[in-house]
């Protein structure tokens, strides 16, 4: 990412939660669908190199949080579809808690600093 860009770097772990949440709301998706949706939701705030999604998907699958299979896309292309597993659903709960704690913590720090 070029220096001086105002768009934030992706915090470690945030992409994971984004992917999991997207799959939870939309159901099974292929990589392109996921990338599109994440950029939509972030409304341009996040400059996602779409390619970085794939190593993240592999990591999530290795952890057993998502599963994948080959299927056909809307315009009948062969594409790999990702879906949430039971463990992945639980993980969303855990990561959400973590995230909220972090946010609350950071908020307190920022208030104190002011």
């Amino acid at each position, binding site marked *: 990412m070029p220096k001086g860009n105002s768009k934030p770097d992706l915090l470690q772990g945030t992409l994971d939660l984004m992917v999991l949440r997207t799959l939870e709301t939309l159901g099974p998706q*292929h990589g392109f669908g996921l990338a599109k949706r994440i950029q939509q939701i972030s409304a341009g705030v996040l400059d996602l190199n779409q390619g970085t999604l*794939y190593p993240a998907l*592999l990591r999530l699958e*290795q952890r057993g949080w998502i599963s994948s299979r080959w299927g056909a896309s809307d315009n009948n292309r062969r594409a790999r579809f990702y879906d949430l597993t039971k463990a992945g659903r639980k993980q969303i709960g855990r990561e959400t808690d973590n995230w909220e704690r972090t946010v609350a913590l950071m908020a307190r720090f920022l208030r104190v600093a002011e």
Partner: protein
Amino acid sequence: MRPLWKRLTAIFSTPRSDRELSEEVEAHLEMRAAELREQGLDPRAARQAARREFGGVEQMKEAYRDRRGIPWIESLAKDARHSLRSLRRNPAFTVAAVLSLALGIGANTAIFSFVETLMLRLLPVERPEQLVNLYRTGAWGKGYASYPLYLEFRKHAVLFAAVFARGSAEKVRFEAGGGNSVEYVSREYVTGNYFEVLGVKPAIGRLFTDQDNRTPQGHPLVVVSYDFWRSRLGLDPAILGRVLKVDEQALTVIGVVAPPFHGIEVENRADMWVPAMMSRGEIMQPGQHWIWIMARRRPEIPRGRLQAAANTIMQQYLMSVYGGQRDTAFGKWALAQKIEVRDAGVGLSMLRDAFGKPLTILMAAVALVLLIACANVASLLIALGAARRREIAMRFSLGATRWRVVRQWLVESLMLALAGSALGLAFAIWGERYMLLFLPPGAGEQFDVAPDAAVLAFTLGISVLSAILFGLAPAWRATSVDPAAALKDGGSGQPGRGTRAGFRQALVVVQVALSVVLVAAAGLFAHSLAGLRSIDPGFAARNVLTFSLDYPQAWKGADKEKHRERLLARLAEVPGIASIGYGMPGPYRGGSWMSGIRVPGSARTATEGVQVNQQAISPAYFETLGIRPLRGREFSAADFRSARKIAVVNEVFVREFLPGTPDPVGRAFSFDTSKPEGGEPTYIVGLVRGISHDGLKTSPASTVYVPFRQGEVNYDPTFLVRAPFPPASLLPAIRREIARIDPEVALVEPRTLRERVDDSIFTDRMIATLSGFLGALALLLAGIGIYGVMAFAVTRRTAEIGLRIALGAAPARIAWLVLRDGLLLIALGVAIGLPLSLAAARINASLLYAVKPNDPLAFGLTVTVLLAAGALAAFLPARRAAAVEPNQALRHQ
């Protein structure tokens, strides 16, 4: 936390090929490009834009590849490093755990090597599981059969896909050319179809066919093993067509067998193969038993039917050969033969018959030892876990999942187990060498028990299994901590809860119970061996050397007789030799020579002749064995010059045929069984005690001793030399005298009589020694376990003990309190172990000699030894408890 296997399958199922990833990326790019095209971009620009948004494809693939294989290995490496550090921090624990495991795993590996070699390793031939051995039982020994019987089975192609046969691998003379020293090779006589049926291929040249085994003495050909070609002939490329002198036959080499084939006998490897028709015996005689009949079964014929059909063929064959003599003793004896269809895919082994059951029992015993060792390590790990509560609580509060911490512990256990198995392998190799020492010579020759791939896999398997066994429960317990509480109590390593100690105590009880089983087994086998050792073999085995002579093949009986006379005269001059004799088969040689007799006046032989053991002996035979005739005399040199038929009989003979006769001297029997009163009489000149010639476990049989007269006896005798000191030192002098008479004659199989007696009970000696060792090991490990638990309990109760002492309790009373706890555990273990060991003893009963499975001596000793060892292990912590300083103890809190 998800189960381990699910995680593992997730890790192993995700790796994808680069091709799949490329396809996925291509789909992504194409979908985006299609969208852009719809928005009006031209295809080229759409494609470029899609690529731009995607970012670097190659960088991504690189990151993806990194991710694909490494992460779990990396985190494992991290765990391993962490484990190494924590193991190094607890050297005493690490050493104790690794040593316990090394002993347990080493013992398992050693025994398993034998089991694998003797009982599991398949022959390196085509479809070995189809091979069977037609094992003959009944008259004339066991296993081997006659050539005509082989031909009979070969006729039945409906029953077997193929039938072949081979003689035992025999050590015979080999002249490599050049020097005149006598070398030996292992030769196997085989039928022409041997290699073809086994599916063994030549490395060079060709192997035999049925054409190479048609006429007696008509095929002077030889096929050698690859090893022999390499080690003895230096891979000579001109080997084909070369003539080798083997057993004084000039044989032309026609081929070399491809490695690793070495024949089909486990403990005797063959160097070379010669057509059976080249054997010197009367090959077509149905009474010549020397060949092992093998067959390849037809998979479609069930085992039961195969055996039934083989029985029928055998019966018909026996009737055709011996039917005419069915009313005579000999006929009945010969007709009682049976054939047994045995699986032979793992090769033939005489040793397996004697040794299979002891090995199975030892395998079970070493498994128990490993269990005890695992219990020890588990107990140590629990203690360690208690000491590490603070560390674990810290990791939890830093966000580690329980699975993560448990995995770290399992990695640590695995490292202990692997270190234990590495050291254990060294122990195993040493142990195997020791075990081989028990095997009689010949049985152990070229008997390769070095750990091979299968053994290494086994060792690895049991070490992983034991890591899980001893690691999982402690890891689970250690991680069930409340982080807040653990951090608060300062991690002094003193869990206040009783359950933790309870689990360790249960482990001690299990250890003691298993030790009872092993110690009791050791006691039983030791008692059994002591019983065998106390058997009087009937002669004085001390200070007697035995050996045989190997004469040049061309020598006739008269030459051998002349040589024997000269040798005896020469040896009589050697200082230190007290007396010399010889006999056929001789004591403890494993051979037997049976003859039918009639005894005038005996009810036993009134209707038919009876088979008795026969021995052909020299003058001074009994003197050399250290016994005097009970009545009459032994043979003198004069008896050999006279033609009068005489014999010495043993006590068993008199009991069987002349009951109530105190002195049989002067009575007669006859080797002619055609008439009730016999024919030409043989006069009894002496009576000796019963000697069991077949081994300590067999009781003496009716035996007649006759003078060894060349011509009447077809086999060479065993020589016996008695000295007033251990006779092995006489061997060089004896060899010298033999070489001086004729360098062509070789002394073979030198062995003291004591060793031969020991050889006859080698399985008993081995199992008694090894089970004694394993029992001691179990006791040691259980002792360490008891000590560990009691010492830990004392540490935990230091404050309480200090308080008691401060309040005036006598140190002796404190010591007793601790000791009592220990003894209670031991008593509980013994109570559980005793019924288990009784059950085990019943399984072992067939290996016990003259000892009942519920032998009170062995069990009494077992209980005593365990209580004593346990009391000792508990006494040390008890003494420490009694010495607690109240002041210090209370401050300690």
